[in-house]
């Protein structure tokens, strides 16, 4: 897939303070997650890509357009949902979205048609003639999403889209992001400090900490190649049990007397393990079955970053 964002030693500095330092990465997923703790520089990176902040060193490209010199082209191709609460209180949702569509280049009639469509799409169809100032927080988040997609951008940048949403509203937002991603009409850059949001929607993730890139992961690939772990606690005559498990194609490590960690191959069938335990008269007292989650990846990245600093 063609790269969406290419970071080439990107650095941003405000008053002698480095906010972003030497970011180097190529991102090309359908949904790209930008993860990091608060103050990591996620929003600064987004704002720099959109040309809001000046670049101090290096550069970046969005769909091949340089952020230093081709911001207009980049802005034509992107839709942006900011983190902050922003709207025009005295306007109705439909006229607000229409205006945003027109500012993105849609002719007036097309903008009106698209405004109605996207408001229905995000679930604000019935409230589209209400003034934005009367909307609840959840509705305003949806209106912000609507203005970001009204012009049919190639890349939509969502900055903390689930901030302040209750669980049903969050679910609705995540569902919309899923649908947009699966429509294959656009690519998504999702910036969040919530691992769950990124894990549920993204196939690629860039982790930042203190303005530095600490990890890049292709989640799809990680999910495919992640080894599956089993933690077993056994009782009974288990001499040679570990060896027998290894003969099934697993990698085995005894952590204490009766506990072992087993790395399972893709083709492993759990029934074989039960059969083996029965044959050897071994009781399986406890069995934890898990994959490496994004949380593990994130925590490892944070630990590595701490180790480096």
């Amino acid at each position, binding site marked *: 897939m063609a790269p969406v964002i290419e970071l080439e030693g990107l650095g941003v500095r405000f008053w002698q303070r480095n906010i972003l330092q030497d970011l180097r990465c190529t991102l090309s997923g359908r949904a790209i997650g930008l993860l990091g703790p608060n103050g990591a520089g996620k929003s600064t990176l987004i704002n720099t890509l959109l040309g809001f902040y000046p670049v101090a060193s290096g550069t970046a490209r969005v769909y091949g357009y340089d952020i230093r010199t081709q911001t207009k082209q980049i802005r034509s191709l992107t839709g942006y949902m*900011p983190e902050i609460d922003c709207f025009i209180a005295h306007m109705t949702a439909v006229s607000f979205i229409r205006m945003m569509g027109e*500012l993105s280049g849609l002719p007036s009639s097309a903008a009106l048609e698209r405004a109605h469509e996207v408001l229905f799409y995000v679930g604000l169809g019935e409230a589209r003639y209400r003034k934005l100032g009367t909307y609840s927080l959840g509705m305003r988040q949806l209106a912000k999403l609507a203005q970001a997609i009204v012009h049919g951008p190639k890349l939509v940048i969502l900055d903390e889209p689930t901030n302040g949403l209750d669980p049903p509203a969050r679910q609705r937002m995540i569902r919309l992001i899923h649908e947009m991603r699966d429509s294959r009409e656009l690519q998504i850059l999702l910036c969040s400090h919530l691992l769950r949001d990124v894990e549920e929607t993204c196939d690629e993730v860039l982790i930042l900490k203190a303005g530095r890139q600490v990890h890049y992961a292709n989640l799809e690939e990680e999910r495919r190649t992640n080894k599956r772990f089993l933690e077993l606690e056994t009782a009974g005559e288990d001499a040679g049990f570990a060896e027998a498990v290894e003969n099934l194609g697993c990698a085995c490590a005894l952590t204490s007397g009766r506990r072992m960690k087993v790395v399972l191959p893709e083709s492993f069938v759990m029934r074989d393990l039960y059969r083996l335990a029965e044959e050897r008269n071994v009781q399986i007292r406890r069995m934890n079955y898990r994959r490496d989650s994004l949380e593990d990846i994130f925590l490892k990245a944070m630990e590595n970053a701490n180790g480096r600093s």
Partner: protein
Amino acid sequence: MAVHKRSYRGYAGQLTPLWSRCLIVTRYAFKNVFQWKLLTSFFSACFIFPLTCAVGIYVNHNLRLVATLGVRAFFDVDAGFFFHFLRVQGSLAFILTALVGPGLVSPDLANNALPLYFCRPLSRAAYVVGKMLVLVSLLSLITWVPALLLFLLQSTLAGASWMWANLWLAPNIFLGSAIEILVFSMLALALSAWIKRKLAAGAALLAVFFFGAGFGEAANAVMGTHKGDFLNLGGLIHAVQAQLFRQPWRSAISGGSAWMTLLAVSGFCLWLLARKVRAYEVVRG
């Protein structure tokens, strides 16, 4: 696609040219301005004086009516007439600026809406031009446009000899109004950007003109100088117009100094706007 089909689809239609985007800002700002009935009424009232003048000019040339009333003419249409016409309309233009100007940028700043404008292919300059066009067009419609129409009416009725003798007035009508419109618009937009509350921005605009004039007078009286006149923006505008229309003016400030001061004020306002009209402000920390 019907609106009830709730699925996402991209847009592959025509796009409008980049240069026209600032006019969209203007159009929506106009729509908002004329939602206020008081303002619409006031704007309509601003045409009463030009219409009265037009009727006066027509009557001036209605020989039968003039003979019936036993007068030579109701008034002379010359440089003095246009100078006073612009002073009257200028006062109305100031009130209109105070009503419209503060509501142009401040709501966008108060609602944090600027990132939504600037994440699109719309530059900060285009945004300011778009907002400024609202004031420029409204103020033009009540200042130099009716003045030039009166000039044309008088030329038509008085004949070519009058027109050729007074042709120098036409560009000066435009110039005198243009500097006034520029100063009013820039000041209103800058104050609207710096003071996020609409009412406070309106009050600040009045204060700049009236307190500035009062403070300048006080400074003149206390220090025995005329430098205080530089703080009187209204006086400076009138000094420029008096010079353009070759009218006597009591201020000690020359036309050239008044021009320079007004252009400097406009430049300062532009700098203020450049500081404030941004997607995000970077706070020094």
